[in-house]
């Protein structure tokens, strides 16, 4: 069907998108790589000099890097755990017939559409504030001492906020997968005397495995780059207790003006993200052939 003419037309139609993305990706990345090998601070213009791998050595041996890497892993892992378990339970719940199901579904997915700065500030002030927040009020109702969430449990608090934002995403995808499950298969298992728990483990869970993989991989891509939630709640603190890699690089670049160091950090972040990306690309690539 594709003649030579349509094929060259097709190439022409693709060119702008491919070219734009190529430039967008390769030029800044090459610049980052180059800067990462320089001693380059914006406060000392004109003093740039070759530094070799010095920036990398500084970045990787900085205790803040170890802390940030651990925080990144804890944040990503924590949010994944909450959204996968919570999302599965919510999907199972929303799959049951009940009155007002459609409305509850809208309520559950709503947090996904709230911009990160709004959700972070609403949680920080109106829910987690140690004196006037709703959580403090609930604690006092039960005669407990209110917790100053963001100062005493900063990383946990940020994890809660981000998990609240991503729970709808996991729920929606798992629900979509759940609804494609063959009803007759469930009924057959039921007639064979399988209880709800064994039906869940042997039929539902394997069916959800693919959707869960997709949730894990896509959330990981976005969660590695969590930024706004940290910026407006804790500023990475106290100390580096809630600093992740993204925030660390930002702080180095735009607060300390250390272009070289921040670029080295950026490259490290790219490598970390690539490890995840390889898995995701394979999974989606397989699907493209199917």
């Amino acid at each position: 069907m594709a003649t030579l003419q349509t094929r060259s037309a097709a190439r022409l139609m693709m060119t702008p998108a491919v070219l734009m993305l190529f430039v967008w990706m390769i030029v800044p990345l090459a610049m980052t790589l180059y800067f990462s090998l320089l001693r380059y601070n914006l406060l000392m213009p004109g003093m740039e000099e070759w530094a070799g791998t010095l920036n990398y050595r500084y970045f990787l041996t900085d205790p803040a890097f170890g802390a940030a890497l651990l925080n990144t892993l804890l944040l990503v892992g924590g949010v994944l755990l909450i959204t996968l378990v919570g999302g599965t339970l919510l999907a199972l719940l929303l799959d049951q017939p009940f009155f007002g199901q459609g409305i509850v579904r809208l309520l559950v997915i709503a947090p996904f559409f709230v911009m990160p700065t709004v959700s972070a500030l609403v949680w920080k002030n109106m829910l987690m504030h140690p004196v006037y927040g709703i959580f403090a009020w609930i604690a006092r109702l039960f005669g407990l001492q209110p917790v100053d969430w963001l100062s005493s449990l900063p990383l946990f608090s940020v994890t809660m906020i981000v998990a609240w934002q991503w729970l709808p995403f996991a729920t929606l995808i798992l629900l979509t997968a759940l609804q494609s499950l063959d009803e007759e298969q469930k009924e057959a298992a039921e007639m064979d005397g399988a209880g709800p728990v064994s039906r869940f483990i042997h039929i539902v869970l394997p069916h959800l495995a693919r959707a869960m993989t997709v949730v894990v991989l896509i959330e990981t891509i976005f969660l590695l780059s969590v930024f706004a939630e940290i910026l407006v709640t804790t500023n990475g603190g106290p100390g580096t207790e809630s600093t992740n890699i993204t925030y660390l690089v930002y702080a180095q670049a735009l607060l300390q003006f250390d272009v070289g160091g921040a670029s080295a950090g950026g490259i490290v972040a790219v490598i970390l993200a690539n490890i995840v990306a390889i898995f995701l690309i394979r999974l989606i690539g397989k699907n493209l052939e199917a």
Partner: protein
Amino acid sequence: MARAISTRRKLTFTAIGWLVGFVIFFPILWTVLTSFKTEGEAIASPPHFLFFDWTLQSYYEVQSRSNYFKHMMNSVVISFGSTFIGLLVAIPAAWAMAFSPTKRTKDIMMWMLSTKMLPPVGVLVPIYLLFRDWGLLDTRLGLVIVLTMINLPIIVWMLYTYFKEIPGEILEASRMDGASLAKEIVYVLTPMAVPGIASTLLLNIILAWNEAFWTLNLSAASAAPLTAFIASYSSPEGLFWAKLSAASTLAIAPILILGWFSQRQLVRGLTFGAVK
């Protein structure tokens, strides 16, 4: 073969469902309620849930003190602008890849996807410096460019999965009937492609509206969209919860409504077609 569902079971799930829905939605509900309070009421303890003097005062103050409308227009220009430019570039590309695929089509799609996985901090420094040198920092144009680029892979992918579903036979049939290329595009393809394009448009406006890495880092007073404007409430100068809530409610309401309409496309768009 629908099983009979006992009313009791249904009522139980109704109670659980609504309770869970209420808890998850509560932060948003609370924001909306607080936006109608005075600053004093907003921090009242124990909190006043419904019985307070409802007032629009905070909404007036948000507009008069900080020119809310300007930031909203920034959000509108940036999210719509980047989405339209993205579509303009992506429609031909997705079209070509869906209808005249070559051996390399799959590789190109995969490569486009991989650019989406580049963490923004990997290119933050050079983009910031280039924007500074070119005078694009804190301009709407700069943000439109950045958001177009970061959402372009998603736009191409979404369109591709929609276009793929248009049966190629219809095109051939219309060609047999002697339709010219222009006619083919206007009368045959466009009507079938419009729903997919509309869904893509919707999802991308949502993503661009809520983007909060580049908008926070590349804008200051004049081009700040709502994400960055709301972030300015994080300063510990005092408790302005009613005003924060009013600004937040205005910022999230339109997108929440768009989002509710696009929930089906959301799954498809954000999983790059891996889950439909």
